[in-house]
């Protein structure tokens, strides 16, 4: 099957991902791409706690993800690839050729950001960076859960 969802979500592995998307997609593996989490066994254990044992969790740095992306795309099982921030998404897109879409699932409030959607807050610069990603051929939509309408980038930036 391959990676059914590329998602930007600052909460990384949480209920919406594991249950909301994981159940209807019948997800068998989750790839969490984050350089800091990759270096911390403690953080990895924490994220694993939220995932049922039948779902594999792979922790990868950006560099590791770039080299293994083809392998995950060829996997016969269904997977989800998660990043926690725009920096990581941009790095993955820049260093690989295989990413054609990103789902914005949660970028929450922080100083300087304004509300674009209930679950998406962006600075003007971040909105511009998402548009630049789209300009590189990456389809970007916002959608917190599968039952919601995928919202095109132009409607929230």
């Amino acid at each position, binding site marked *: 099957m391959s990676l059914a969802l590329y998602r930007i979500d*600052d*909460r990384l592995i*949480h*209920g919406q991902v594991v249950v909301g998307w994981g159940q209807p997609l019948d997800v068998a593996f989750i790839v969490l791409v984050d350089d800091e989490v990759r270096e911390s066994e403690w953080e990895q254990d*924490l*994220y694993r706690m939220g995932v049922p044992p039948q779902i594999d969790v792979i922790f990868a740095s950006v560099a590791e993800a770039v080299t293994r992306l083809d392998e995950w795309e060829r996997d016969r099982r269904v997977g989800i690839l998660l990043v926690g921030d725009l920096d990581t998404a941009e790095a993955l897109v820049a260093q690989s050729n295989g990413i054609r879409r990103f789902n914005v699932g949660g970028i*929450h*409030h*922080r100083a300087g950001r304004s509300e674009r959607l209930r679950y998406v807050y962006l600075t003007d610069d971040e909105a511009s960076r998402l548009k630049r990603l789209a300009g590189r051929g990456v389809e970007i939509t916002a959608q917190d859960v599968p039952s919601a309408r995928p919202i095109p980038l132009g409607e929230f930036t």
Partner: protein
Amino acid sequence: MSELRGVIVSHAAVADALVAAVAAITGIRDALVAISNEGCGNDALAERLRDAVGAGPAVLFVDLPGGSCLTSAARYAKHHADVAVVTGVNLAMLLDFVFHRDVAPADAARRAVDAGAKAIRVTAA
């Protein structure tokens, strides 16, 4: 030993509802604080936790044994020795907790887990 505070960390309005239910049943209104992860990234949820726990010892009651509520609670407890974390919060454990808050956080957490687990059963048809 000062009495423990219980902080319930949940999705949506689960925590609010549990606090209201405990107050309705026991009349105790100062033992529990509710926090929702609604609209929160990790930073915002950590801030809500800091405000809710305050200075004293506490037990953090989290709804699910994984996800953003747990990760925030566990990160907080990692840096605060007087804070314990329990997952799978239910009303039964909270009803027991509010009457047994003069113990160490780890002891209160273990007691809460026992009380909560005993309430989960299949009843006779």
